[in-house]
């Protein structure tokens, strides 16, 4: 009897672990945008969560429309994903051009306020065009899954984790193996010297925003699929949690954002599973405050290795 009870605990634990990885991957994708932008212009882009929301909306709009054109569900999903990422990349480039570039020489506080303003503007824009009510995601695309006893893994979770891993590998190759990636790292390390070797820093900054927003858009679609709906204000809480993840990992550090995202996701799921579901949002913020208080440089520190962008 005690043995089987022990096994139930074990299955519960494994289930939480799987859920935690899923959610953590999503936070990591959003956190990367914060950390890359911070690495390159030392700005906490508070409008970043809105790209996540915009991606979620664009995803559901495109999936529904493509499905109505008679496309195979998987093709709908793939195409909607790619187009939403592209859309958010362009949106972020426009936001950077309008709200941040004119303030390049201004104080950091001015840019920060501009980012907050942009966040409000984008969120309200989404509300006015898409309405205040939740918009349902077609979940049948990725329904079903595997089950072992009490542990279940949905195809959705496999899709999310697989896509997250693919995007992370792609980002890693882009940043560490390509000419543009080298230029991004050089620009984050020394803007004057980058200019002296012929790098147009404005272009690199623009590309960095585009990449971060593209990843956030993918995360927005994943969350829409996972929870079955999107809402105009959905960018706020995950945005702040991903920010906590970026700070926990060490703001500016790519590996740190990944580690931070996974930790925040795990903590949230385990806290919800073992302590209380109602307070699950609190734990990310406890971690944020704790990190800022005890180790502001985060797990990876800001400058201790070469994975900063």
């Amino acid at each position, binding site marked *: 009897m005690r043995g089987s009870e022990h096994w139930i605990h074990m299955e519960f634990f494994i289930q939480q672990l799987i859920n935690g990885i899923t959610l953590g991957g999503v936070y990591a994708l959003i956190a990367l945008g914060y950390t890359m932008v911070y690495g390159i212009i030392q700005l906490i882009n508070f409008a970043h969560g809105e790209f996540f929301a915009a991606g979620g909306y664009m995803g559901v709009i495109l999936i529904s429309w493509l499905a109505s054109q008679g496309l195979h569900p998987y093709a709908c999903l793939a195409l909607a994903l790619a187009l939403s990422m592209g859309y958010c990349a362009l949106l972020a480039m426009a936001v950077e051009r309008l709200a941040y570039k004119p303030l390049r020489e201004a104080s950091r506080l001015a840019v920060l306020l501009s980012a907050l303003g942009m966040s409000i503007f984008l969120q309200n824009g989404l509300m006015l065009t898409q309405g205040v009510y939740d918009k349902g995601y077609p979940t049948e695309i990725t329904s079903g899954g595997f089950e072992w006893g009490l542990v279940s893994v949905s195809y959705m979770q496999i899709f999310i984790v697989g896509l997250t891993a693919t995007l992370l590998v792609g980002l890693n190759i882009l940043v560490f193996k390509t000419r543009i990636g*080298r*230029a991004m790292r050089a620009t984050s390390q020394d803007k004057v*010297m980058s200019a*002296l*070797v012929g790098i147009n820093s404005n272009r690199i900054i623009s590309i960095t925003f585009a990449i971060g927003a593209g990843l956030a858009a993918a995360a927005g679609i994943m969350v829409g699929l996972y929870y079955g709906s999107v809402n105009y204000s959905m960018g706020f809480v995950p945005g702040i949690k991903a920010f906590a993840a970026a700070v926990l990992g060490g703001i500016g550090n790519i590996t740190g954002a990944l580690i931070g995202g996974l930790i925040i996701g795990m903590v949230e799921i385990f806290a919800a599973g073992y302590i209380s579901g109602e307070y699950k949002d609190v734990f990310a913020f406890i971690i944020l405050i704790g990190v800022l208080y005890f180790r502001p440089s985060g797990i990876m520190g800001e400058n201790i290795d070469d994975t900063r962008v």
Partner: protein
Amino acid sequence: MADNITPILELKNVVSAYGRIKALKGISLKVFPGEIVTIIGANGAGKSTTLMTICNIITAVEGDILYKGERINNIASDILPSMGLCQVPEGRRIFPRLTVMENLDMGAFFRKDAADIKHDLERVFELFPKLRERRKQLGGTLSGGEQQMLAMGRALMSSPKVLLLDEPSMGLAPLLVKQIFDIIRMINSQGVTVVLVEQNANLALQCAQRGYVLETGTVVMEDEADKLLTNPDIRKAYLGE
């Protein structure tokens, strides 16, 4: 130098400022193709500011900067390397978290000619064999001398026509300084025009053909390098006699 040759680089009454404080108060100088020209002067005389103004990192508020006879005041810093105007700035500014190889690659960032880039890389490795050994190491982990070599190698990867060098001897052991200056002469003999900013006036004047002396943002003297080297005022003020 004969007056009928066009200078490859010329400054005419250039004024530049940090906020309201004028750092250059009307600098004029000429650099002819194939020369080594040195700019000497005390700390704060405006030597580095002159180089940063040429590269438009600091914008000139008055005067003309001419490169190959064309006014370049309004050309963005990041365009100049592709025109053949390169700088090794003060403190070398190696990208600390890029490898030696990546730092060198950054020098050729704007270039598309893969075969020529490879050729230039071989040339850099011949000049600085240490860099080949250390090519996988992070730039920030190199010694001062190696960083100077890397900074110069990175600039050579841009295949410059004019190389602006800011204090290449700074913080280096005498033996290394000699080595660096030998290499500056070698680079020059391969057809690169060199503008050399130095606090070590003695070495700089021995290396250069002509020199300009800067004091608080103005040119106070210009002459052939060997004449400056024997000028009693210069010897007193800058050569410690």
